């Protein structure tokens, strides 16, 4: 079955199911095993102001709060495609800002993609075509447990000669090294700025004389390797790039790939996609016409990657709808009132006004999630019978009630 959690989209897992208990077996990675694990019953009642209520009362309370809200933020957005479509429909009815919990990594990549574009590639292309894989920044395997097993298997279809995997400014951990046992792994440390190193690398490849000469040595041989590659894949975990220069690293990586493509082939593959953030962005684009971080308002829908980021938007929000169906993630600190459509184990710092425990896509019900490369979306199946409602069910029920109340 399909794993819906990190965005790598592994779909070769097997699980043991006994009643409501679920256990993911190898080759599931550690993260997947933890997130799939379900003990016995997960009966959890909706709460309004901390008191258990019938689902219908919780839905009615949420609809009342939204109808009375002058500024609503739909945050978290951890849901499958059907849940996201229903949440967007709710936002279309009552208005509000939409942003995903994993947006910081996504927008680090989009800041370049929206402004200048890029040449990208996908998982199967890297698997089969990339003779050189450049990993920028931190080893992604702690987040994407099977990253190199999936991206750099031992027998590619078209890449010739030994495969080279180069870590620039990061060190492969034990898991990565084990998955790359068949490949030639090189580590190129970066003392200062990762973005500067990439700019220098691009200059070397373009045949320009670098302004700074300091760290040129190791980069010169890296430039030669990349220049000789038939198909270079440039990958990075966007969310794990250094906070202060993450956007610049992405932009420099894109420029590097552009330069490589003048003579050979190359593509960029940002790793991201936790809790269907890619699906959320796709749904926004086809339903609203803007990416995430958009305010849906009658006649004046607008997109602003800074002002409509969760943290910033929360300052001007009365009611936050926090959705996190895949894992127990607490909502961000917030002064207003909260409606939580969330994993039943979500730890709240302060109890939300409305808490509706929801089912997990791919465990409790079927649906769709998108993979990190944005091209492939995967079908999820229910693994067990669950009494928990889906995000789509709840969002539709709230919309039906809010529709009558909204202006």
């Amino acid at each position, binding site marked *: 079955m399909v794993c819906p959690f990190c965005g790598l989209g592994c779909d070769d897992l097997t699980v043991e199911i006994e009643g409501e208990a679920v256990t993911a077996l190898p080759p599931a990675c550690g993260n997947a095993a933890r997130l799939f694990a379900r003990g016995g019953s997960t009966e959890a009642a909706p709460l309004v102001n901390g008191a258990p209520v019938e689902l219908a009362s919780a839905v009615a309370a949420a609809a009342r709060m939204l109808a009375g809200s002058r500024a609503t933020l739909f945050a978290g957005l951890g849901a499958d495609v059907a849940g996201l479509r229903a949440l967007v429909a709710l936002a279309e009815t009552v208005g509000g800002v939409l942003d995903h919990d994993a947006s910081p990594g996504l927008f680090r990549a989009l800041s370049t993609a929206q402004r200048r574009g890029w*040449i990208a590639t996908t998982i199967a292309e890297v698997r089969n075509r990339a003779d050189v894989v450049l990993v920028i920044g931190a080893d992604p395997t702690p987040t994407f447990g099977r990253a190199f097993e999936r991206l750099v298997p031992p027998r590619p*279809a078209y890449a010739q000669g030994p495969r080279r995997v180069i870590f620039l400014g990061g060190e492969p951990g034990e898991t990565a090294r084990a998955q790359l046992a068949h490949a030639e792994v090189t580590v190129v440390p970066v003392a200062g700025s990762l973005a500067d190193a990439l700019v220098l690398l691009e200059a070397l490849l373009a045949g320009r004389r670098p302004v700074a000469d300091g760290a040129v040595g190791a980069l010169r041989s890296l430039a030669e390797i990349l220049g000789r590659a038939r198909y270079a894949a440039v990958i990075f975990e966007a969310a794990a790039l250094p906070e202060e220069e993450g956007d610049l690293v992405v932009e420099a990586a894109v420029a590097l790939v552009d330069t490589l493509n003048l003579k050979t082939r190359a593509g960029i593959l940002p790793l991201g996609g936790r809790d269907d953030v890619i699906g959320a962005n796709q749904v926004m684009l086809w339903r609203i016409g803007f990416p995430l971080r958009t305010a849906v308002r009658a006649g004046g829908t607008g997109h602003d990657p800074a002002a409509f980021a969760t943290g910033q938007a929360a300052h001007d929000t009365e009611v936050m709808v926090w959705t996190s169906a895949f894992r127990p993630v607490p909502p961000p600190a917030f002064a207003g009132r909260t409606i939580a459509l969330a994993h039943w184990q979500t730890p709240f710092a302060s109890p939300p006004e409305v808490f509706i425990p929801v089912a997990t896509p791919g465990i409790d019900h079927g649906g769709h999630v998108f993979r990190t490369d944005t091209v492939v979306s995967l079908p999820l199946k229910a693994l067990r019978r669950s009494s928990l409602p889906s995000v789509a069910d709840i969002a539709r029920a709230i919309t039906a009630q809010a529709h009558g109340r909204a202006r």
Partner: protein
Amino acid sequence: MKLRLKGGRVVDPANSGTSLVRDIVVHDGRIVPEEAADGTEDTYNVDGHVVMAGGIDLHSHIAGGKVNLARMLMHEDRRAHPEPPGPLCGCGGGHAVPTAHATGCRYAEMGYTAVFEPAVVATNARQMHLEMSDIPLLDTGGYLVLGNDDLLLEMLAEGAGRQAIRDYVGWMLEATQCMAIKVVNPGGINAFKFNGRRLDLDEAGPHYALTPRRILTALIGAVTDLGLAHPIHLHGCNLGVPGNVETTLDTIGAAEGLPLHLTHVQFHAYGTEGERRFSSGAARIAEAVNANPNISIDVGQVMFGQTVTASADLMSQYRNRGIADPKRWIGMDIECDSACGVVPFRYRDKSFVNALQWAIGLELFLLVEDPWRIFLTTDHPNGAPFSTYPHLIRLLMDKAFRDAEMEKLHPAVRAHTNLASIRREYTLEEIAIITRAAPARIHGLSDRGHLGPGAVADIVVYPDNGDREAMFSRARWLFKAGRPVVRDGEVIDLVEGQTIVARPGFDRHIEGRIVRHFDERIGLKAAHFRIADEEIRDGAGPLIAGRG
């Protein structure tokens, strides 16, 4: 629901060569003979109006990954075209690449009821179907892109038999829930992944040593053997390259008399004559189309203004990246399957090249004689957004208007086109053929595109306005399966469309090889690649063509 449209001028070329004033009677979503009327029908007096079947667009990029990438790049366009007020069109905005919702509404306002997405990358087909669930008012369908997929090329290079290719194509069509096969720059997209920068019809590509001609003829054979209604829908080699008229003529020859549809031919009709080394090849192509009844084309007309080009043909889009306007573009190699390239572009009437492209498109429309083998398209959004269709229709129907528009263009263009000397004006009957009757016929959709008994009651009523642009911009009425959904150019009701698929039979033994390919190469299970019926249109499932 029963209704009678009373007293309109019925333009229904699939059933009658001439237009007659007569009533149309609808029972339960289908047209019935007038004698079947029982007097309980809601009557719409449409005296002085023109009645046609709902429009069918056989080539318009309305859904899928590349369309969403275009939306991401075109945020200024979205901002400049906000959603209209009111509950029904609440979240439809954008012009060059409208939202799913706006796509359905804007098409319906012009009287269209079916639109087909012509470039479905197999590994992205599920996204297209998810998006189509959010397109109201239109029936939809997709054409699966094959001809650069590594598994097919590997099979051809190994000398796989005709039957194996047929079975592979049948399996892929079923798995992706598509209705036809599209071929984009056969072998060229794949060659670009091996760093090939161009590939001509008879040039062997890298790695597999296959020529585009070989790939194309194999796929023509497969759709013939599968008995698909729509022939191969071909975006040929060398898109946009001056001199590509020769390639296009060679490609017509490569069909060897079998049915072949050449798409957005305007982009493939360029010569190299004149001091600017860019000239019209439209007359030569029209002559070849006229002489070869197995060939059909759609035009891909260029209209002036801001748009965005989105194509699976990354080899060509990489070549075009320098002319991006605004200066940004996205390319992507996709899953040992296909690719995409998205390049924003503004066609300018004062540009010689753009103005000549405009003239070449119109020459094609006016010089191809048989309206059943030419279709009205702008290759939305590549030549222009679909919302320019009414303007295009006026250009075809109104010689004086056409001449006046030509006056606005780059002056050198008039010396490079014989457009001014072409006197032809399309009749309403011919417009009805190229915008509904012929697209239905070439897809074998026998109950669409016409107004005879048994047809689905997708019916549009236009005011009979001498200004044909105004007339075709805003339908007086549009009925979708017998329900009124547009009145005076405004959407008054939202109904769900259906997604049409083709389901030819094939030998399922091919599945073993496909499963191995997915397991070993793609790293995705074939079972998860395959799209189930329940995934179509929120569980409604597809409408299987030819099975009612």
